[in-house]
């Protein structure tokens, strides 16, 4: 028995938003009587943290404390349209829609504050702590709560905003493929270290080191969550997962998590990552989509590492122990 080690890497890019665009998302923002803000959407949170990052984006664009932003999503009777959560699109599309709605609401809020303070709107700024004050004169201020109360009960004004983001649809030329397919591209480069048991064909991924270029991060912890989860999924795709173990035959299709193998905690290696932020031209505060790309770079990196370890050339996934042992047999036969 020999355990051979190898290193491989892969560089990938990934588009943000649905291919060829045409996938809008809308947002509505309004102030409550006590100066909180409700962001109404119908976007779906799959666990990736959509509700959290939309509250961050809304707070930033409104200039109010994060804690005062309520995200209300998931009801088609109240939330305006969202195309859906996929295509690494929601941070970009929903984020931009929220900025547009929040900008309109902020303008309405500052107009009320200006009336109360008897100054012009252009002279006002927010401190992000719940106050609006005259630029350079912090004591001449009014709280967001007082402003919202005045808007409701004294002035009869709404503090609200509407937002939408649409990348206009770009038809693809059927002959040449000419098109404007994406809003921006994110980038990844992953280095994988593996150890392969030449007797059993078992592969252990020893470590994954990645650089991800995702534009402005809205929430670095949630980006890291995507990266680590994506690496985990990538390891499963590379080494274990298939619904057709005898592809193209359909026999022995797995029916549960006992027969459909995915990596467990013991199979998971350390994931180190470096995150680069090269702003996108059109993303919310320069953000790009990160959700899908994180699975894509580990897969070829691990396959390249296995090929590097064994001196073989495997070109299929999953690289099961059977695939490894057959590749070693073929190598032995060729060198004989």
């Amino acid at each position, binding site marked *: 028995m020999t355990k051979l080690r190898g290193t491989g890497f892969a560089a990938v890019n990934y588009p943000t938003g649905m*291919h060829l665009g045409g996938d809008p998302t809308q947002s509505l923002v309004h102030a409550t009587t006590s100066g909180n803000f409700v962001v109404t959407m119908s976007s*779906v949170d799959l666990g990736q943290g959509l509700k959290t990052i939309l509250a961050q984006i809304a707070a*930033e664009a409104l200039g109010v404390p994060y804690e005062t932003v309520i995200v209300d999503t998931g009801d088609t009777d109240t939330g305006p349209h969202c195309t859906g959560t996929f295509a690494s699109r929601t941070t970009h599309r929903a984020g931009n829609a929220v900025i547009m709605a929040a900008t309109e609401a902020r303008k309405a809020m500052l107009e009320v504050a200006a009336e109360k303070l008897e100054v012009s709107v252009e002279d006002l700024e927010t401190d992000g702590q719940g106050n609006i004050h005259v630029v350079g004169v912090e004591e001449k201020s009014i709280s967001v709560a007082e402003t919202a109360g005045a808007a409701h009960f004294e002035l009869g004004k709404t503090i609200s905003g509407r937002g939408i983001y649409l990348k206009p649809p770009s038809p693809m030329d059927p002959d040449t*493929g000419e098109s404007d397919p994406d809003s921006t591209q994110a980038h990844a480069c992953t280095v994988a270290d593996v150890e392969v048991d030449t007797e059993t064909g078992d592969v252990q991924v020893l470590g994954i*080191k990645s650089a991800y*270029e995702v534009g402005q991060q809205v929430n670095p912890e949630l980006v890291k969550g995507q990266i680590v989860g994506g690496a985990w999924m990538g390891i499963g795709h590379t080494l274990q*997962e298939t619904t057709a173990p005898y592809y193209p035959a359909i026999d022995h299709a797995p029916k*549960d998590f006992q027969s459909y193998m995915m990596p467990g905690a013991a199979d998971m290696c350390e994931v180190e990552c470096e995150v680069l932020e090269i702003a996108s031209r059109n993303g919310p505060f320069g953000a790009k989509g990160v959700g899908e790309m994180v699975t894509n770079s580990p897969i070829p990196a691990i396959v390249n590492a296995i090929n590097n370890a064994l001196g073989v050339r495997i070109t299929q996934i999953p690289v099961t122990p059977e695939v490894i042992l057959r590749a070693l047999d073929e190598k032995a036969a060729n060198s004989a």
Partner: protein
Amino acid sequence: MAVKDLKIVGQPVKLRDLDTHVTGETVFYEDVRVPRLLHLKMHRSSYSHAKLLSIDTSAAQASPGVVLVLTHEDLPGKKVYNALVGAGVGPEDEPILAFDKVRWKGESVAAVIAETPEQADAAAAKVKVEYEELPAVFDVEEALKDGAPNVTAHWPNNHYIYPDDHKGAQVRFGDVEKAFAEADHIVEDSYQTQPIEQAPMETNGCIAVPEGDGRITVYSNTQALQFSLDTAAGILDMPANKLRFVGGTVGGGFGGKVDIMPEPITTLAALRTGRPVKFKYTRDEEMRVSSSRSAWRVYIKDGIMNDGRIIARKVTTYQDSGAYLRFSSYASMKHCGHMPGPYSIPNVWVDSVVVFTNRTPSNAMRGFGVMAGSFALEVQMDKIAETIGMDPWELRLINAYREGDMKSHLKPVEDAGMVETILSAAKLAGKELPANFQNMSSLDRKAG
């Protein structure tokens, strides 16, 4: 490197529902409690390809607890659908409930609605279907051969037909054949991925609740609420204002919850019975019935110069759509848009063909159309490096696209960052590169 002066964007704020996800107190669609709830179970095809001679539901109807059995004859609106019909994709090719033929093992044939899940299951097993088995095809290139079993009449040669009668989505940029003739090296290989399950913790499902005003509220774990609503309304031929979809907090998706499979039939069951109805995929159904990631076969031929420049890339891809179209034509177009990867290559030719087989229909999954492309391209890049005797890092850095380079679909590169990302990963992994490579930038080609 902050993009601009920001207060809360860029901060590692705690996930708002983190605590309740951990304690199990987050409310998902299944946590909705309604009285008099009925349960739907599906009788499914036991053949991969067969003529459907007859469906006998009498024993199922008489089974204990059964309230309703639905077959294709009970559908008030469409018999076949494609969820992207509103976006101009067609023809609609997939039966809501099978008639005439079944084209994959697990296809929906009859829906049984009963007082308990167990009663619905027991009754679904009593639906009697008479089949005449037909030859089936499972391999994409076998399916394209003359004389292969035809999966659906919409696609006489078992492949999707793109506009202008094209067999595949395609890219034509420069002249690959001329460049191959000029290249110092030709490197060819083929790559294969297999169908993969999205494996969300929470399986597909919904609860449809009739309201007093004649509307139906559908609690769903779809990844796209309005899309599911519009699709369900279209299938059932009912005004969209009769439906309300509620969701937005979902136990994992990964592309596996955009099929709109449970919602239309459950809504119909609620309309017909006047009672709330729940349809929750079992793990078995999630694994074998709900869409998988497509299997992809990718052939790559590259022309390379001695100095490492890739001057031509020809890609022929076969995407295994399974028995029906779903979003596969979109995925092959996205696959085309992704080529030739993060590199500037002056001559690019791509044909991406959607092939129909008697497999469970495939559909979206994380990296739709792109994952298999990136896998193939990056394993190919190592083969090129080995063939021409060049360091694989240097090969990628030489070819990585720079800001303003013209991509093969005639859009200049924007927001480029591949070079910096590769250099950052090299540093993280302790890879030493010559100074001229370390000084490279996405902004120009001066170094190197």
